[in-house]
């Protein structure tokens, strides 16, 4: 079982967490044309490399961010959403 270090609860088996996927830019819905809006809905951050993504620690319902490498699965950093996001 992979370990994920929750900023609040410490290192835990990753099955205590729920992935909410990479952080997404949120375009202004009222200033976005239909095709771009569709792209926003369906596009996916899937590049080989490091992504910043949302995770939920399910037992404590704490949401935080993690930098993770989609190829090696290495978790580079986890941090509270109030902290600067760096790569995001």
């Amino acid at each position, binding site marked *: *079982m992979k370990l994920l270090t929750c900023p*609040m*609860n410490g290192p835990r088996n990753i099955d*205590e967490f729920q992935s909410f996927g990479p952080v997404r830019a949120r375009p202004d819905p009222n200033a976005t044309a239909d095709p771009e809006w569709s792209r926003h809905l369906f596009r996916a951050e899937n590049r080989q490399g490091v992504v910043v993504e949302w995770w939920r620690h*399910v*037992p*404590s319902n704490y949401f935080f961010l993690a930098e993770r490498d989609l190829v090696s699965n290495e978790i580079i950093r986890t941090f509270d959403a109030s902290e600067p996001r760096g790569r995001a």
Partner: protein
Amino acid sequence: MAAGTATRIYPFMPGGAADGIKLVSGAVVLSDLTASPRFGLKGCGSAAWLAAQGIPLPAVNRIGKHHGMQVLRLGNEDILLLAEGVGETLAEVKTAWHAATAPKGYSSWREEGWAWLRLSGPRLAEAMNGLCALDLRPEKFGPDDIAQTRVGHIEAVTFRSPAGFDILFDITASAYFARSVAAVATHIDQHNA
């Protein structure tokens, strides 16, 4: 909200949802504390109000003690008070909170939402290793530590008590949880037979 004349019924009591499900005893012992006094606040203003009552608040995921109560800090704004026995101070805090004006946080209703069971017995460590993936060796998990984790495959809060581990979890899963502990106890008996 005070309950006038109505009787409270918890899962393992006669007429409760888990009525008829036995709590194991033997090498592994499970006992029910669900009816013991509890009071929790959660949400904006909770920590400040409790602190203003003179209750020292520990760090998140740590336990403090105050006048016969255990103070569990489950989050910045999520604090649970536990008492075994009469719980006079706890009752006073509860009364004061109901009487107070906002901001005072919001009730977390843990005394209704969570069952409170205690795992103990000669095979306690083995049983807990079967139920929980966390490293709970004494040098890693002290008497003031709280783990918000999974016990018996469901979300739970656990911490040490002098007798064993206390476990708080979704009250609607009480029957399931008691059966899961019983199954682990059976496996322990068989493995060591």
